[in-house]
């Protein structure tokens, strides 16, 4: 890659070239002078000084003009090359953008058909198994009813799986407009959404009053906190009542929201894996689920420019946190 003529290095090179030219001109004239003095009688040689001066200026000017032309030509060629490269680059970027747009559209079409076309047969499986149980339950024997019940359960599980997968893929596609969001309101909304679930588990959820505000995408944040809370009340030892604490601490322009549970805890070896999609540390019979909840937490928070983490030990419960920008930059850390 050549330097452009405008760069300081190129300027210095051009000056060097000019000096070399001047030197060459001077040398040429000196040689001419010596030769003429040898050839001509001394009386005529005395008149040469004026002509020598004129010739020196003309030769120097001519050489400088030629050099100038040459450097302009080089400059033009470089510019043309740069323009061509820029055009090629723009064309490549446009091509890649079109490709990406196409695969995004395909992904959208795919998840659309997942949400629509996969659910329709699922509704039939669930609905008709249910109908079988309700309308013909007394003519079925015990194992017949058991089979139908398993159909219903499997359909529910698959429904949850499709829902979580869609939510996860939508997190990547949704445009995130970040606005100030009151964490207190978010947690309240999540508790409302989980009311039945919390009551069924007799879970005790203690939320710190006056939670701060953060910069976030409201629906995504609700989804994130919902999955955090769901995770917190789910992994309790058999017979244990879930107890969850939700609190926040501001730190240097950021806010950390903590969700602490009294669950079975996570071995430090597995702590990174719990955020990966479909990673499950326990069999579906003990802790049923899709294995996507915490991936939604991480993907969602990362799309809002934040971080997630946890601290946990086996048998001592877990403390998950998410960190987002504070909506109140003036607040002291």
């Amino acid at each position, binding site marked *: 890659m050549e330097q452009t003529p405008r760069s300081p290095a190129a300027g210095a090179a051009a000056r060097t070239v000019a000096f070399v030219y001047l030197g060459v001109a001077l040398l040429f004239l000196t040689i001419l002078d010596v030769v003429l003095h040898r050839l001509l009688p001394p009386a005529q040689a005395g008149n040469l000084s004026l002509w020598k001066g004129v010739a020196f200026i003309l030769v120097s000017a001519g050489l400088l003009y030629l050099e100038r032309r040459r450097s302009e030509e080089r400059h033009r060629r470089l510019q043309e090359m740069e323009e061509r490269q820029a055009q090629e680059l723009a064309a490549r970027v446009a091509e890649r953008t079109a490709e990406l747009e196409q695969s995004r559209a395909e992904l959208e079409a795919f998840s659309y058909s997942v*949400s*629509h*076309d996969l659910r*329709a047969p699922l*509704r*039939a499986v*669930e609905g008709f198994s249910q*109908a079988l149980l309700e309308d013909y339950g007394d003519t079925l024997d015990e194992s017949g009813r058991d089979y139908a019940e398993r159909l219903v359960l499997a*359909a529910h599980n698959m429904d949850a799986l499709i829902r979580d997968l*869609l939510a996860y893929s939508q997190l990547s596609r949704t445009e995130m407009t970040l606005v100030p969001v009151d964490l207190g309101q978010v947690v309240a909304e999540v508790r409302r959404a989980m009311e039945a679930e919390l009551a069924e588990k007799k879970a005790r959820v203690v939320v710190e009053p006056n939670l701060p505000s953060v910069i976030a995408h409201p629906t995504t944040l609700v989804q994130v906190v919902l999955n955090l809370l769901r995770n917190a009340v789910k992994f309790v030892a058999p017979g244990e009542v879930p107890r969850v604490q939700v609190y926040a601490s501001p730190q240097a322009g950021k806010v950390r929201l903590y969700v602490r549970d009294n669950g079975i805890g996570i071995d430090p070896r597995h702590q990174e894996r719990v955020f990966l999609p479909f990673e499950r540390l326990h069999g579906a019979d003990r802790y049923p689920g899709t294995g996507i909840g915490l991936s939604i937490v991480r993907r969602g928070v990362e799309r809002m420019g934040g971080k997630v983490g946890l601290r946990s030990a086996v048998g001592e419960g877990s403390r998950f946190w998410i960190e987002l920008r504070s909506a109140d930059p003036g607040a002291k850390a």
Partner: protein
Amino acid sequence: MSIETILLVEDNPDDVLLIKRAFKKAGLGHSLQVATHGEEAVDYLAGGGGFADRDKHPFPALVLLDLQLPRRSGHEVLAWLRDQEDLRRLPVVVLTSSREPSDINRAYDLGANSYLVKPVSFDALLDMVQVVERYWLALAERPEAPRARPPR
């Protein structure tokens, strides 16, 4: 309990059967009429084709409209309906599988009165049918039914 007619526009026979069963369980089975594609829905509402007899095919008090339909999509049926001088106030509840924001927005833009996603669980469907009936046929004030059109 109401004896108003509800028009269900739904092409999937499984869904038709399940929704019919939900209506029956909710004690509303007698009020349901079914159109299995968009054109049939338009014919029914306009009283054309085989639907001219309003004693057999009463004008509905409510339409439950699927979006993915053969011949004319639910969105097209909705657009057509809102364009009819005498029919356009008819309450329409979209009942579909799609949770896509583009489908939801478009349906409301075209004048849908509500948008519901068919649940997988039959019990949830039963709840939904009961809530829809209670809200749209018992609680909400409805627009005047159109006067009978002259036969075409």
